[in-house]
């Protein structure tokens, strides 16, 4: 029986890594711009469709698509921020929520219109290959998704800590007016933050395509998980988001075994969420700019 728990722990960590990349994008956007991006999961979904068509039409491997997605989705995020998000920065949260929620619905309907409701699978030859790890079977594609996601989170972290642009972003997150006062181009920082957030979530989607289905409706579940993680980790806190994501991944996976029925596994995550909100509302690891 402990084999089963080990399997659950490992698969929980693997998916937690991908959740981390999704959540890090969301927390970056919130940290720098104070925007709650309800359409986050839909960018993941479009990333997946991009990889799917690249593979189906041109035979491009999804991992190659992930590399190409970085500049592509950064640019898309940049453009979306400039055109749609910029007008509501600083406005009431209600307006921001309506905008990003509307964007989410629009993107889902657009995807269904363009690609049909049929869900797709990206087939790769190495798709079901697995290896043994003390009795648990680990699939190479899930391990790759974990490694790439965590690698990108680490790279983002280094970027924010060591580079000038990264420091400027953190400055905006901590203190908008002060940052403007020292001459940081806030509008540009917002575009960069959004672009990075969107690039992260799109790549998270792409690395999942070898083992997860592609459909217009996949977004909301990831948006929801990302929200839980971001609150758990502390809004705007990147290492917090990563830790929170791994915790949620494991709770979900082991929850499926421990709860009286796997249908309640999400309940385990939400109970944790509510407990954190009640007893440590700034998140397990504290607030912004960390």
């Amino acid at each position, binding site marked *: *029986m402990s*084999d*089963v728990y080990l*399997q*659950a722990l490992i*698969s*929980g960590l693997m*998916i937690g890594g991908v959740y981390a990349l999704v959540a890090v994008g969301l927390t970056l956007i919130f940290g720098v711009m104070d925007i709650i991006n309800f359409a986050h999961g839909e960018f993941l979904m479009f990333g997946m469709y991009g990889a799917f068509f690249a593979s189906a039409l041109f035979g491009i491997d999804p991992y190659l698509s992930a590399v190409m997605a970085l500049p592509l989705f950064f640019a898309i995020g940049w453009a979306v921020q400039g*055109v*749609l998000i910029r*007008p*509501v920065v600083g406005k009431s949260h209600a307006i921001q929520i309506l905008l990003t929620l*509307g*964007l989410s*619905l*629009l993107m889902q*309907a*657009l995807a*269904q*219109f363009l690609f049909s*409701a*049929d*869900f*797709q*699978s990206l*087939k790769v030859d190495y798709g*079901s290959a*697995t290896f043994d790890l003390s009795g*648990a*079977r680990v*699939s190479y594609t899930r391990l790759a998704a974990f490694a790439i996601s965590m690698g990108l989170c680490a790279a983002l972290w280094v970027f924010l800590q060591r580079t000038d642009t990264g420091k400027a972003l953190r400055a905006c997150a901590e203190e908008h007016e002060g940052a403007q006062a020292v001459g940081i181009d806030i509008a540009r920082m917002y575009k960069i933050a959004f672009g990075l957030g969107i690039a992260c979530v799109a790549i998270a989607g792409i690395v999942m395509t070898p*083992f*997860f*289905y592609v*459909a217009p*409706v996949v977004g909301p*579940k990831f948006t929801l998980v990302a929200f839980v993680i971001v609150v758990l980790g502390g809004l705007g806190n990147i290492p917090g988001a990563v830790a929170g994501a791994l915790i949620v991944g494991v709770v*979900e*996976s*082991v929850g*499926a*075994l421990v709860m009286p*029925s*796997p*249908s309640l*596994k*999400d309940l385990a995550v939400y109970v944790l969420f509510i407990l954190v909100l009640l007893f440590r509302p700034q998140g397990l690891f504290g607030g912004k700019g960390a």
Partner: protein
Amino acid sequence: MTISRRSAVLALSALAVAAGMGAPRPAMAADDIPVGILLPLSGSVAPIGINNRRGHELAIEEINAAGGIKSLGGAKLVMVDGDTQGNPNVGISEVEKLARRDVVAIMGAYQSGVTFPTTQMAERLGVPYIDPVAIADSITEGRGFKYTFKVSPLASWYARDQIRFVVDTSTAAGNPAKSVVLLHEDTLFGTSTAEGQVKAAKEYGLEVLADISYPKDTPDMTSIIAQVKDLNPDALLLVSYINDAVLITRTMKELGVNIPIVGTSAGHIDPAYITNLAKDADLTFTVGEWNVDIDKAGAAEIAKRFEEKFGVPMNGHAAETYMSTMVLRDALERAGSTDRAKLRDALAETRICGDDNILPYDCIRFGESGQSPEAQLVVLQIVDGVHKTVWPPEVAATKPVWPVPAWDAR
């Protein structure tokens, strides 16, 4: 600044309207007969809903081409879609919308969880409701509804035939099965079938090692399948829609779980199961309502026309929706009226038998509760990417492959 925000909002709204428009309303002539088709045309079950709709579409095309409803002066049938989005609440409001559009009857809604409340709304509004595919016993049994007509077999019959198949086939192979694990999605479809499976397992002497209910559309089934591997039953009985069915099979291959998969129609009988899993779909069993290779006159021809028109093979769902449309046509002819109460009475007298019925039993008719009493099931196995009938032996086209070879031995 204000201008660019306004134009952004306008642009977004215009796009939203365009994207949300969907299919245009059919242009109707004065004496056309509107027929309500209530199905999940968007959302996670949409691929199956769209496939269900094809059976209706083919039937209506044939009916209209043959001169429409003769007793009503050759009036043609027109489909009026109600998209439930796979959601019971949306389904209920779609029933109201369809009733206001004066549909003569409603056919739907594929999912048991949506069919159950929508039949109730239709009963209240006095609209005849034909259920071609949804199986839950509770849709007809014990309700005393007069306007619900269920063509599909009961969920408990699916369960019973599934267990009988496992016992028969494993015994014939020389190693009678002793245990099963039940793994089912958690809406009415899954739970009602599981109840039937537990009862049938007891009746036929199979031990149920675990009765696991999982959340529909779950992205990761690894821990649950690891649990199944640990339990090591002689067969895994699944009740899943399409996404879960594909994910479960994939996960079983990844974890090296070598247990025969026996599905309960739905996801396992949908063409998308095979297109998404390719070779890995092979050797899956499923209970089915019908199959292309069934020994019934006219079945092969209709299947051929279906495949030519839609480019996918016809399956049990499409056969049921096709025949349900024929049931409606037959009732309209006999009623000679589009009055809903008269149509209801005509439906209650339905008897479509023998060669007129392509489903694998003699007559489609309706009992007191609205259930079709003769409805029967078959069991199919996917061989080389095609569903083949393997049980019961009287109608089987080929022998089942049992025991099922391990994943790495294929």
